[in-house]
């Protein structure tokens, strides 16, 4: 019992400690067994990028979309492949031959709905003309086509009168496009389309095979985005190895003890294995968002592991044997560790207020991960070190370091002095004001054009920009589903109302053009009346309406004629534009209430984005309330002092404000990817405060004043806190190189928050404590509050 006297502030052995250390071998075996079992399951985890999971499934817009998903599918899921020549125009025999080959090749790719394909080389693309005798027409490629100059000239004529310029032929005649609708479910085998395989096949059999010095191929469409996302996600998996090696290097630099560095790494990897294994077992998956979790679990694991190793080494340096060193380390840290990890875990669960499946998966995965760390790094790690000990080199290094004043101490120790404290708080206050001002510009939603999931300069988005520039179609599509009684979708009054609605929406700033069955019917009316514009109106006679839509493209109303989509092509998918569109749809519906027609929002990428934005906007404030509520409650329970809570929480709020200002500055919107980052930043950021403050209080309880207490805390955990901040930052910083834009955004923001939180804790906690007059002079020592 001698050691207990010497280190009285460690207190008595708890039940948990006894349970753990009395049966050390049993625990090691249990851990080993569980790890093997969970590794088996973790190995089967595959990233998936399910569209359904990335959208707020319970939002009314999305519910409406799900209701008609099958009806809209024929219209929605397609890719557009454009073949560009950089040498001359498309009226070239060689080019046309290539275009024919690409069209043929595409028709063989699995998942392609061959009969729906459209290109100037498919027989369903025709020209037509009204003559004195009626309609005449034919396929755009002349029946007599032989590549000669005459037949190319004939082709040019046919293209001009086919109305495909801007649709299948670029406005500048330097590229042509192949429209390729996809079958989500293979009609023969019933299998779902494998987007990853599909994307790879496009790259291999189309892009690589046909691209040359003078030929470029652009591929655009949802299926390609998903394929690229999965590719990107797999690449990011590789970053994990990188993060691991960097962390190992840092661990060694920090401890100069390879043995304990490896043990910490091992325990953290075990935590990741457990987390992945459990996720697989509970039937949850890993998606491009929740892929962040293994990185976080690893980094959090390492940071908590470092605290343990730090303490073990200090105890060994103080002359304890290896078992006692481990026991005392456990005893000294498990309450702070548990509090910190509990706040992490509960902080993550507050993400559940965001009603988007991928974020819920992320929340569950992260909470599981943190719970697992409690076992691996607070449980397994001390046991392992009690066997393996730390190296002599490490202990010697610690002795050496102890002799000279550590720069962390001199750098941050001064912030308990009134002058420095006031200065630091004043600077932070000014920055907060600036931050609040900047964050007024914070936008909801995605701000970049193209596929916001991918980087602006990604191949996909360059392809997309090319097609947007050269063809007359926007890629930001907002679909309003007009619902009627079955059989009534093209009834005259309903069509007339849709006509008026369409014009109403065309007048909304940000709406480029509108397409629907009404548009087709009006064109058709003019068409069957010799092209006379004076006839281009919805006709009151339903037989005439039927005649006018004889040649309609598919997907403009559903099989039972109870729903007709109205497709709005938008300039962009900025939140302002989407809000305006949503409001105008509602205004119109309110102005023309109808018993028979309902304007249901919304499908299309922009429609879904509008729903996502709404969910994010509503969740944003609630999530902050929850995460701060939880953190404040936990700190109150642990420290039972409002002033302490303020000291810990104010720096976190400072970081939250600054990161929002950063987002506004960098043009990163609040979206599915970045909203969780705030919660993660707060949840993990509070760890620093808890560790530092628990040591300050420990010293205060021993009668030291604030300055001494802070120096004590710094000497005990300051280095570890600094190290933790760097480890966490490095773990997520690798994400900044992800080809997936939102992962890069997450990486950037988390790195910023981890570092900023660390600095905030080291500088602002002592400064605020000084300003709040924490210390023996103003605060009576709480009696009996003993367990550090």
């Amino acid at each position, binding site marked *: 019992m001698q050691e207990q006297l010497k280190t009285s502030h460690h207190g008595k052995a708890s039940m948990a400690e006894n349970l753990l250390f009395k049966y050390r071998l049993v625990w090691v075996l249990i851990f080993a067994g569980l790890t093997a079992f969970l590794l088996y399951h973790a190995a089967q985890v595959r990233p998936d990028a399910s569209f359904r999971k990335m959208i707020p499934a319970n939002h009314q817009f999305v519910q409406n979309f799900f209701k008609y998903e099958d009806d809209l599918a024929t219209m929605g899921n397609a890719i557009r492949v454009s073949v560009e020549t950089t040498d001359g125009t498309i009226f070239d025999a060689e080019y046309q031959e290539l275009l024919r080959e690409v069209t043929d090749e595409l028709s063989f790719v699995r998942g392609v709905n061959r009969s729906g394909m459209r290109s100037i080389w498919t027989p369903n693309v025709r020209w037509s*003309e009204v003559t004195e005798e009626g309609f005449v027409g034919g396929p755009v490629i002349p029946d007599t086509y032989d590549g000669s100059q005459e037949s190319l000239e004939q082709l040019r004529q046919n293209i001009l009168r086919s109305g495909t310029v801007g649709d299948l032929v670029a406005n500048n005649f330097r590229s042509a496009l192949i429209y390729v609708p996809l079958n989500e479910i293979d009609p023969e085998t019933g299998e779902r389309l494998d987007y990853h395989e599909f994307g790879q096949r496009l790259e291999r059999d189309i892009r690589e095979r046909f691209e040359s010095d003078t030929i470029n191929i652009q591929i655009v469409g949802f299926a390609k985005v998903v394929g690229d996302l999965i590719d990107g996600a797999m690449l990011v998996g590789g970053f994990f190895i990188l993060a691991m090696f960097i962390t190992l290097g840092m661990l060694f630099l920090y401890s100069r003890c390879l043995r304990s560095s490896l043990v910490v790494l091992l325990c953290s990897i075990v935590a990741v294995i457990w987390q992945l294994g459990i996720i697989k077992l509970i039937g949850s998956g890993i998606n491009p968002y929740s892929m962040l979790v293994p990185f976080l679990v690893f980094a959090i694991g390492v940071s908590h592991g470092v605290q343990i190793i730090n303490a073990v080494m200090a105890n060994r340096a103080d002359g304890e044997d290896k078992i006692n060193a481990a026991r005392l380390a456990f005893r000294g840290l498990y309450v702070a560790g548990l509090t910190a990890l509990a706040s992490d875990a509960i902080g993550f669960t507050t993400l559940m207020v965001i009603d988007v499946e991928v974020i819920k998966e992320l929340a569950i995965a992260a909470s599981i991960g943190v719970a697992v760390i409690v076992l691996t790094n607070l449980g397994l790690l001390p046991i392992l070190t009690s066997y393996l000990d730390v190296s002599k080199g490490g202990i010697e290094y610690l002795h050496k370091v102890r002799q000279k004043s550590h720069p962390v101490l001199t750098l941050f120790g001064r912030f308990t002095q009134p002058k420095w404290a006031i200065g630091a708080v004043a600077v932070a206050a000014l920055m907060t004001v600036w931050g609040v001002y900047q964050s007024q510009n914070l936008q909801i939603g995605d701000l970049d054009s193209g596929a916001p999931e991918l980087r602006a300069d990604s191949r996909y988005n360059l392809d997309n920009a090319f097609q947007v520039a050269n063809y007359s179609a926007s890629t930001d599509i907002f679909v309003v589903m007009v619902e009627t009684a079955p059989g009534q979708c093209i009834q*005259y009054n309903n069509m007339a109302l849709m006509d008026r609605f369409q014009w109403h929406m065309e007048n909304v700033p940000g709406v480029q053009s509108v397409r629907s069955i009404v548009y087709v019917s009006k064109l058709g009316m003019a068409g069957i009346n010799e092209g*006379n514009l004076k006839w281009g109106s919805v006709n009151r006679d339903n037989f005439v309406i039927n005649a006018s839509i004889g040649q309609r493209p598919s997907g403009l109303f559903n099989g039972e004629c109870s729903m007709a989509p109205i497709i709005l092509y938008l300039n962009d998918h900025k939140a302002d534009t989407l809000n305006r569109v949503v409001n105008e749809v509602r205004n119109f519906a309110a102005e023309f209430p109808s018993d028979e*027609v309902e304007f249901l929002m919304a499908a299309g990428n922009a429609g879904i984005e509008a729903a996502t934005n709404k969910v994010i906007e509503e969740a944003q404030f609630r999530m902050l309330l929850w995460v701060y509520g939880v953190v404040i409650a936990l700190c109150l329970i642990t420290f039972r002092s409002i002033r302490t809570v303020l000291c810990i929480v104010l720096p976190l709020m400072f970081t939250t404000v600054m990161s929002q200002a950063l987002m506004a500055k960098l043009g990163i919107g609040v979206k599915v990817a970045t909203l969780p980052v705030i919660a993660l930043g707060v949840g993990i950021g509070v760890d620093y405060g808890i560790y530092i403050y628990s040591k300050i209080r420990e010293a205060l309880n021993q009668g030291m004043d604030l300055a001494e207490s802070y120096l004590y805390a710094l000497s005990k955990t300051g280095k570890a806190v600094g190290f933790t901040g760097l480890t966490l930052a490095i773990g997520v910083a690798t994400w900044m190189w992800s080809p997936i834009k939102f992962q890069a955004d997450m990486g950037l923001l988390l790195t910023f928050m981890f570092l900023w939180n660390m600095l905030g804790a080291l500088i602002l906690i002592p400064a605020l404590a000084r300003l709040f007059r924490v210390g023996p002079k103003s605060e009576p020592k709480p009696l009996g509050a003993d367990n550090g």
Partner: protein
Amino acid sequence: MKRIALAGLVAAILTGPHAFAEAEVERYDPLFTPAPQARLATEGKLVGLEQVNGDFFAVGALGTVVKYHGEGDWVQKEIPTSVLLTAVYAVDQEHIWAVGHEGVILQSTDGGESWEFRLDGHQLLDMEYAWLQEREIYLEDAIADAEDDYEREDLEFRLDELMFHIGGAEIQFEVGPTKPFLDVLFFNRDVGVVIGAYGTILRTTDGGESWDVKNAAIDNPVGYHPNKLVLAPDDTLILVGESGLLARSDDQGETFDMLESPYHGSLFGALFDQENQLWVYGLRGNVFVSDDDGESFTDVQVNTRYNINSGTVLADGRVVLVGHSGVIIVIDPDSYESTLYSHETNSPLSGVRESADNTLILVGRAGLQTFQLPARIGH
């Protein structure tokens, strides 16, 4: 109680049986819904164009009537209907007429500031049905009085045709007013003619208070669409239409004489130039000119196969025709030589007027546009 019941009865009689039918389900009816005011009123589809005292009136989709002052300055007028308006005609600076789908005839008596219904499609259905029944009695009498078998056979054939139309008209009551008017022309404030789909011709001599159905005034048993009315300086009225329909009236539309058509395809328009030559034009770039009021025509080559929809005469005497795909054809009235231009929108044009200095005001599917022509060489 009695008074209320009586009031209800009166209301029911005044508004007719429709009032009860409408009360059951609320349905949107563009015919009687005021036109939407639109930010982009000049960018929607506009098909009719008229010049009034230096301003331009353009009419088109969803009851849009725009008064254009030039230089992008315009104002949209309040219109009591939302149907597609097809044509606009100014008698003088105050009296302007517009016609459109579903039997709509509108009039403004204050220079286009305010507009009101002068006829709607329900009234048209009633009028046409009454006229068909009159024709039935007339033809039956004529058959009874026929002088020879040949005449009787001809009249019986006409009666068969008529009975077919009466059957169709009865169905039309169920369907509602579907017929678009396609053009309007007034000789003065009182006397005017409106033409529409399937051979419809209406005439008024009291400024639109009452209308006579004049469908039988031209020989058009199949019911081809008359498309355009045009007035010669001497008050001669020319009517052109589908399948080469071509007729002339010397008595302000009371009676018509059929002219021999230079073309069996559809004619969409006609105009008289400064030298009193009659130009007719239509499907697939077909243009013909007559210097004897339509008795004989010369085929004019204009080097386009696009439909030609409308035309005007420039102050310098040149004839301008516009059509599909943004084609603008300028023709020398003496040599018949033509120059082809294309508007950048490449979209169909259906109306043209000159504002000043060879500047064209155009309307079409892409709305109101302008186009600057080079000046006439040698003028």
